[in-house]
């Protein structure tokens, strides 16, 4: 195939990174990991969980579940089943032990069911405090929400 007809790859892949890393010494690798560590909170969470640092490796993942499954609707926060599942997926990649995963999955069910139950127990005054946009979004969220509690 001629150079002109070769289709350029749109996205770099792990193999490209691996080839670059082959030229790094230990110091270079440490510097790269440090840069990644400081660049994003998710990277710090990943590394802390992977190496078992801190008193509770599950805490940041539980905080994410709490945020996305039991939002503060009075602050206009929304639910997101996808983002909650992403937190569990991130833990699976960082550590992936069965006990930690089970704890997060049970916590997911507790928070989702707790949120639905909490709303169900509110009196009308509570819903009157929500804007109509917020109420509409909430009822849409709950519709999308109840089935994934039971089924994956």
């Amino acid at each position: 195939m001629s150079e002109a007809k070769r289709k350029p790859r749109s996205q770099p892949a792990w193999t490209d990174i691996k080839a670059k890393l082959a030229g790094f010494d230990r110091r270079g690798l440490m510097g790269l990991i440090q840069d990644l560590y400081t660049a994003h909170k998710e990277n710090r969470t990943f590394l802390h969980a992977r190496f078992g640092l801190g008193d509770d490796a599950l805490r940041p993942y539980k905080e994410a579940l709490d945020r996305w499954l039991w939002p503060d609707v009075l602050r206009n926060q929304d639910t997101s089943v996808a983002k909650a599942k992403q937190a569990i997926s991130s833990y699976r990649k960082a550590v992936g032990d069965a006990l930690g995963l089970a704890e997060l999955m049970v916590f997911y069910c507790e928070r989702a069911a707790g949120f639905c139950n909490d709303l169900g127990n509110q009196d009308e005054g509570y819903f009157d405090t929500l804007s109509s946009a917020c109420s509409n979004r909430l009822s849409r969220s709950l519709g999308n929400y109840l089935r994934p509690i039971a089924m994956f």
Partner: protein
Amino acid sequence: MFEQALKVIGKLPAPDRDVLIARLDRVRVISHNFGYAVGDDMDSLLARHSGT
């Protein structure tokens, strides 16, 4: 997620398993308030996976 949790819990040793199953049982009870047969589904799933 309830079913996924039961599958992972099934791989754990008995003491851990029992504690987590008890927590899911409380979720199951609460979920009967929601309609959409969510609680009924959980009844079946818990019976199937925990052997009760």
